[in-house]
């Protein structure tokens, strides 16, 4: 077994997240699928850091986590405000930018 297996796992998780973004209709679940894709990329970054013997990949993963935290805060607030006006959390219902 080599660290390549981690990259394969990361590719599988990323694909599952992408399929989830395309298939699911609930906006929050779509958001969670995006989080899964970010996590998969983080796993590959950590594995690349190990393969290269440098800590840069881990620092990149750290920045990805920070950006993901900020993104989650803003995204969930947008979902909340859409839910407040449209009374729905489905991505099919929000077909207008206003109202």
């Amino acid at each position, binding site marked *: 077994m*080599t660290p390549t297996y981690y*990259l394969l796992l990361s590719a599988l998780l990323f694909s599952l997240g992408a399929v989830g973004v*395309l298939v699911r*209709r609930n906006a929050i679940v779509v958001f969670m699928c995006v989080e899964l894709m970010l996590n998969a990329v*983080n796993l590959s970054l950590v594995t690349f850091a*190990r393969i*290269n013997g440098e800590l840069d990949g881990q620092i990149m993963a750290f*920045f990805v986590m920070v950006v993901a935290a*900020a993104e989650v805060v803003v995204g969930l607030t947008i979902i909340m405000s859409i839910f407040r006006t449209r009374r729905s959390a489905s991505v099919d219902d929000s077909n207008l930018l206003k109202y």
Partner: protein
Amino acid sequence: MSAFLLAQQVTEVADTVSTGEAVAFWVLAPLSLLGALGMLFARNAVHSALFLVLTMLSLGVLYMVQQAPFLGFVQIIVYTGAIMMLFLFVLMLVGRDSSDSVVEVLRGQRLAASLLGVGFAALVAASLARALNDVTPVGLVTPNTTDGGNVANIGVALFTDYLFPFELTSALLITAAVGAMVLAFTDRHARGTKKTQRELVEERFRGDRPGSLPGPGVFATANSVATPALLPDGSIAEESLSAIVETTAKERLSGDVRDVAGTGERPDAHALTGARADARADTPAEGTATKEGEE
């Protein structure tokens, strides 16, 4: 010198994947895949969130196994601890029963998405396996054992080489916090729907009823706002009914109606003395209390 030798020795060992790591991988990788699949297929959004927590926890342990202990703990604390709990909060606010609609808006979209996912996974996995098949990993033993270990080295790199991205991160976090506050803020006074106190008072005194409406009925059996107030003749005061609350059925209030109308059972004045009321009622030469009870 001895530390260097030790690092050299450990490096040679850590280049390859040890048996323990392989065992951990083969336990955790199916778990994380299971969590991802569960998140994808769970109808309930809360179940999806919990499956994602499982995936993130196993990924955190995989980070620790892969010589990234700092990231592993940050993953568990920040992702599963903070972000996923935020998700659960919003799920509970936005209505966790808002499950996915089964109707396909675009025909064949699910099939196309699944095919795309499978194709993408095969492509990436094949190219990765082909490109990295004969790569020998260097391993992180040297940066993880020298100069204070993993955390200290990440900190040094963050505050020297990556100082500018780090400062940008602070700007990003501030912007996100302010943006979340702006988006979540609702201006209640700007809508014009809420009347001022003066308008309320004038409206009341110009209406046909200057006094306050009767409150809900408060009885020994019920004190909720759904309980209507009873008029002295036992009928229900219609003005005490709320327009939006479903009122209690009148059958449930029959005992209270009888009490208010005076046709029900009268209170026993000797209830606390221990004497039985019916025993006293049998003897006509009793005090005034019994006579009052008989009236």
